[in-house]
């Protein structure tokens, strides 16, 4: 993962109401939550700043009404932020003309929706080819690209079905296919699997990871399901009442929750399955141990080894010893 930001949000606010811009200005661009409410405005996003790195999966997590959907819509400018700047590949999204915005959407962005948002009057292939159609690409050519995508999302043989003839999972495959038709660089997924049954959801998550492994997109993924966030994310953003509470890797959130709100989410998780050795090891080098483990192994998989050996050395990817882990630390972690 390279660390060049693909997308940057700077102090983004979104208020709904009569004249939110003036209101923010008159309150020094930083009004109190109470004042906002009292003045009849609704706060959707409060001072959000973040960076999205190339090829990472950034998950935005929050309960309904936390502003995560609005934030993503600000990034794609489906919704205009009240104030704040958004840079996509160093282009200021706020300054784009209508046509420039359409151009960006036609070539660089894709979005998957919670309720699929398929066009009911179009067949699977017509749905997937739609973004190409509106660009004015000839029928033969766009259907050829669409067929490739149908292969990718596993819908061979269903090209000429209408959405309502498909199951929920299949419908979302169409949604995913359509969002990938223009080979986007920035891929938004707005709770793509929330409307699916648990089993199908799991299958789709795995499929999604598989697709990402081969395509390597920059992804912004929304969910209200913390397990899903942990499973998919490189980094997670936790939102609450329009505010970004914490940004960090799954391990950061578990080990160092920013506040009680985050802590509540992480409490009931099977931590030994989620955390790797790195997050609890002792960084003082003790080279005397006979057995070794790698820093990115999950704790539950080395549990037995540590408990029987008493102490192990921790190696990084190039087999250098970077720390150690002993029985006491592990038992303390498990019983915590």
């Amino acid at each position, binding site marked *: 993962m390279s660390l060049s930001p693909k997308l940057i949000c700077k102090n983004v606010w979104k208020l709904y109401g009569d004249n939110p811009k003036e209101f923010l200005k008159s309150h020094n661009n930083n009004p109190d939550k109470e004042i906002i409410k009292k003045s009849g405005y609704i706060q959707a996003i409060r001072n959000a700043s973040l960076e999205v790195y190339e090829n990472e999966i950034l998950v935005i997590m929050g309960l309904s009404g936390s502003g995560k959907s609005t934030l993503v819509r600000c990034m794609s400018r489906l919704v205009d932020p009240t104030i704040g700047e958004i840079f996509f590949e160093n282009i200021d999204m706020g300054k784009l003309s209508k046509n420039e915005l359409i151009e960006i959407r*036609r*070539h660089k962005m894709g*979005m998957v929706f919670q*309720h699929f*948002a398929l066009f009911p*009057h179009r*067949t699977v292939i017509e749905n997937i080819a739609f973004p190409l159609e*509106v660009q004015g690409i000839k029928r033969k050519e766009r259907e050829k690209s669409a067929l490739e995508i149908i292969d990718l999302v596993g819908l061979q043989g269903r090209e000429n*079905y209408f959405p309502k003839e498909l199951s929920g999972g299949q419908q979302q495959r169409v949604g995913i296919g359509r*969002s990938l038709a223009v080979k986007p660089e920035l891929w938004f997924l707005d709770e793509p699997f929330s409307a699916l049954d648990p089993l199908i959801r799991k299958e789709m998550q795995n499929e999604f990871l598989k697709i990402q492994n081969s395509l390597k997109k920059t992804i912004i993924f929304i969910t209200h399901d913390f397990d899903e966030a942990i499973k998919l994310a490189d980094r997670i953003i936790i939102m609450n009442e329009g505010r970004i509470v914490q940004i960090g890797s799954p391990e950061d959130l578990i080990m160092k929750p920013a506040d009680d709100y985050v802590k509540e989410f992480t409490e009931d998780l099977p931590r030994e399955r989620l955390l790797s050795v790195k997050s609890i090891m002792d960084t003082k080098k003790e080279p005397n141990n006979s057995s070794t483990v790698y820093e990115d192994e999950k704790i539950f998989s080395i549990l037995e080894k540590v408990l029987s050996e008493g102490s192990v050395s921790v190696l990084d990817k190039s087999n250098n010893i970077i720390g150690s882990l002993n029985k006491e630390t592990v038992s303390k972690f498990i019983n915590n």
Partner: protein
Amino acid sequence: MQKKKLSNKIIFISLTVLTFFLYWYGKEIANYLDSKWLVKYPKHYSFPFAIYTSTFVKWLINDANFWLFTFNDLTRFFAWIIEQPYNIVLAIFSKGILKGQGQDAIQIMEPLSWISVVGIFFTLALYTRDKFLIILVVLSIVYLAVFDQWQSSMITLSSIIIAVPIGVVLGILLGILSYKSKILEKIITPILDLMQTVPVFAYLVPILVMFGFGPVSALIATIIYAMPPMVRTTLLALNSIDPQLKESGLMSGCTERQLMWKVLIPVSKPTLLIGVNQVIMLSLNMVIIASMIGAGGLGYDVLASLRRLDIGGGIESGIAIVVIAIALDRLSQSFANLPTLSKKTQKTFFTKYKKIIFLIFYIIGIYILGNFFTFFKLFPEELMINTSLFWEELVKYININYFDNLESFKITLLTFFMLPIKKFFLGIPWPWFIFIITIIGWYFGKTKLALLCLMMSIFIVTTGLWEKAMITLYLCGSSVIIASIIGIPLGIWAGLSSRANKILTAFIDTLQTLPSFVYLIPVVMLFRVGDFTAMIAVILYALAPAVRYTAHGVKNINNQIVEAALISGCSQRQLLFKIRLPLALPEILLGINQTIMLALSMLVITALVGTRDLGQEVYIGLTKADIGRGLVAGLCVAFISIIADRIIKAGSNNLKNKYGIK
């Protein structure tokens, strides 16, 4: 809370008592105070709206000049645009292509033969893949030929073929524009309200004056009458599209135009088709009325027969209209419900348009055959059936054998039901009536509704039409009461038994398909003219929504609530009276509201059978071509229906909010 409820009750009772007191003693009090204006609004205070309106329209037609063109040029231009396609369609279906003028014209090409028209409708029905419908449609068209209604039917059909597409396209465009611009939506909604509540007769006159007597005027009136629901349906369809669908269109890179025409409109197609069905039905509803300003065809036949009191002829043409209405209604409905099936195979040009290609060859074949055998051109006269004599005999028979029964039924209802209501409405002093209406408005909708009620009733009183408005109220009121007494129990029955529902729905659907005018024919035959006849016709026309809404309300109650009631030990009777009916009340109110709206629109038409209400005033305006008189009386009717509509809807919404049902 308790206290407030109690004081509300006291106010309600005392207001009612006062109303009756004033009804009985209002005149004496006014005499005693020597202020007769309390019971009768003084004539010299009425504001001459009618004269001003007439003067304005006259100015518009004679003198209005928009620099480049006059208003007259504008109307002529519109008329011309509509006339061209109408002439083509008329040539195809009815007149053939003519060369030359008037009497000396030579037909150089025949119109479509009856067999070809049957073929066209057969092909259309084939697309629905509904065997029953195919038979129904074909039989309907054959009926027109067999019963000797062909010529008039084709003229009527031609006007429908022109009016419907224009109404639909204009409606969709206006709908799209007001979807895009909130300001336009705000402007257009009240105009639509007025267009749907001002009785048709009222704007026949201005159209007549602007466009002259003839089929074009009739078409314009039809379009104006039939278009509003299309605008509303379009707006509703666009507004109820899942926002995610719109976003997914935007994220796919649609321009605004692509979003509208590739996403929003196609997605709304099912709803839009329902709108198209409504436009068709309303256009058919106008067939007879439009013939007053020059539409020929079946409508004219009905009107002429009614004027001649030719019972048989009227019924014959009336049935032909009904047959067309039912066929077109079912046909357009099943197009709206047509399921989309997966396209398993790619289609070639030929397989895709197979049916149309066949149809074209069929029509050409019939045309060639028609040159050799007249059967293929004209339905043979010796096979035609004339039923007018039958109808005449039937009505004669009923009138001879059941005259006394019908008459005593009529007189009983008149003296014990209708006259007391009439006296009541006419007896209340107008200031008190306006006060009560305003209070009711305030109770249901606070200041805004109170103001609306006040302004509108003051308008009615200042036009000097108060008495006529009261007669309208009395006729509407008695009809709605009886319609509710019949309709609500029927609705409950339909809501409880699915078999009853099926039968009643078929019955109600047919009732609603019939053009309003048709109801007049049988009742006039049986009860002659007068208020009673008017009331019966209004009841028949306005019955449907009372049944339909009640059935819907009673049936569509959350199943868990029903189960909870049953578990609590409700008997079926208790379930109905303690659970279903209270919860259905908001819906039933809406049904009564619709009944009132239909009743008011029908009342104007019943002016033809001699009522002395606002409808008569509108009708006089029409016959004397007095623009102002008709329009002002029409506005009064519209205001009455708007007041009733707003109050009942507010009441229904209050209830719904109270129960937390959507």
